């Protein structure tokens, strides 16, 4: 194994932190959105769906720019956030997590939606005849049954967050120690004529990280499935 430079280990730590919070914070929203889109028909559903999928169709840089305009200190939402809570997202790692979350959101929602679609609603009604309220049915029946889908969504979102570049660099810039995640560090190196070796090291690190995340998810998934099927 090779030893990590300070820059590398800092980028890794930061990337993991950003990806973790990106997934964790967006999961409840992702679940709610998937549920809403899968189970209900309402006016403006296609629009909501479209908005959720926007980060997928727009170039990441554009999404980052939109975030910057919206959430920058001078942006409508950003100024409100700052004045009310003293929160400022641009140029912070929290902002990086937000950018990653926004970019990964459609992936998470899709995966969860897909698994909500495939569960047998008869089981849910059966649970209700046993006295469980809608909420309780959701928590005890639906949620465990869609767990593999949620996991898949989270892994996808985590991986996407690890690799997020365009929106991040645009929204929170490339600030060492604060927002310079692995992909940003990688970008910086690629910009320097002799950076290939360093870039390669970072690329390998990214791959190792994602393999680890995937491996972990496979193990969890296998357990979940074992619980479900055998």
């Amino acid at each position, binding site marked *: 194994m090779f030893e990590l430079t300070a820059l590398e280990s800092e980028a890794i730590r930061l990337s993991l932190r950003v990806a973790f919070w990106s997934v964790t914070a967006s999961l409840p929203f992702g679940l709610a959105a998937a549920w809403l889109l899968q189970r209900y028909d309402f006016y403006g559903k296609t629009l909501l769906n479209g908005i959720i999928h926007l980060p997928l169709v727009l170039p990441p840089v554009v999404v980052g720019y939109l975030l910057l305009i919206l959430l920058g200190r001078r942006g409508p939402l950003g100024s409100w956030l700052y004045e009310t809570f003293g929160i400022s997202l641009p140029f912070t790692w929290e902002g990086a997590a937000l950018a990653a979350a926004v970019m990964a959101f459609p992936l998470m929602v899709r995966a969860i939606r897909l698994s909500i679609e495939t569960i047998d609603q*008869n*089981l849910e*009604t*059966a*649970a*209700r*005849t*046993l*006295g*469980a*309220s*809608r909420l*309780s049915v959701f928590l*005890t*029946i639906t949620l*465990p*049954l869609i767990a593999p889908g949620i996991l898949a969504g989270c892994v996808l979102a985590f991986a996407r967050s690890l690799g997020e570049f365009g929106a991040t660099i645009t929204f929170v810039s490339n600030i060492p120690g604060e927002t310079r995640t692995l992909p940003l560090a990688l970008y910086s190196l690629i910009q320097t004529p002799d950076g290939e070796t360093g870039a390669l090291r970072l690329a390998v690190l990214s791959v190792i990280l994602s393999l680890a995340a995937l491996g972990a998810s496979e193990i969890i998934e296998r357990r979940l499935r074992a*619980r*479900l*099927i*055998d």
Partner: protein
Amino acid sequence: MKNLDVDLHHRLGKMTLEAKFACETGGITAIFGRSGAGKTSLVNMLAGLLKPDRGRISLGGETLFDSAAGIDVPIERRRLGYVFQEGRLFPHLSVRNNLTYGLKRVPKGERRIELEQVVALLDIESLLERRPQALSGGEKQRVALGRALLANPKLLLMDEPLAALDQPRKDEILPFIEQLRDEMALPIIYVSHSMQEIVRLADTLVLMSSGRVEAVGSVEDLTSRLDLRPLTGRYEAGAVLATAIAGQDKAFGLTELRFAGGRLKVPHLNLPLGQGLRVRIRARDVSIALTPPRDTSILNMIECEVKAISEERSPQVDLQLDAGGAAIWARITARSCQALGLRPGLKVFALIKSVAIDRQSLGRRDQAARFLSEDE
């Protein structure tokens, strides 16, 4: 004793389900009808799983559904236990957690049925830690039954709960269902194809045919009605007698029943004197003699008068007999009918084997403890 009042209209594909009836669900109410008659659909509407196009359902004075008034009590607040035709066990929970799913939602004080009780009865101790996928068909159905019971419902809906079970298992579970009805006073709506099961269990019978409720009434009445034969089934034909315990013959393990037309000896019943009991006597178990035969093992010879002879062109004819006011049916060959010169008004003896009146043919009207001593 809850009053169930139903008036529903609902389209199902090309068929329209129309159910208008009222009955008391004090004991067990059976829904009987051929495959596709709409039994499951009706029960689904009672439980709130299927929303009728229009109509009303009320149970014990509480309106569960009323399309006109816009009432539709949510499934979980109807507190109706449901044993589904296809099990519907939760695949991600162990058998134990499937069983306690409903139980956990019942306040401690309101629990009248407990886990140990159900596990012991259904003999599923060894399955408790398994997943539903590792169960056989019959085992699944037993767990589903236990799960619904443990939710301690106000009324239990059972959709052919015993179809997947073998006879010995059925024989074990039927008394338990009776016990629920009697000791727990749990009203039950029971969908079944089996007239045997229904006679044994049910007080009230709802007959369905192609989406319509054709008749509602006591099991005795409906099974004795000739016009309902196409629905109740020819093979199952028979009459139900209202009897009471008149004596016990401890030595031979026999019990004597009194009814309007005389006395019947049946295998021992562990019931107090005077206790009311319903007995179904199938037409095919009744023979006819003009004079009481001697030296035979047939213990029950009831003197009757021939009331009517079915006109069907068939090797077999059904006789309607009157025994002191009680109706008895007998099925004999057309040849015997002619040989004996049977005709309405003739006095004959109905021969009924004691052993033909077995546990399958006995039902009950009143509340009491288990009444059959186990015979192995």
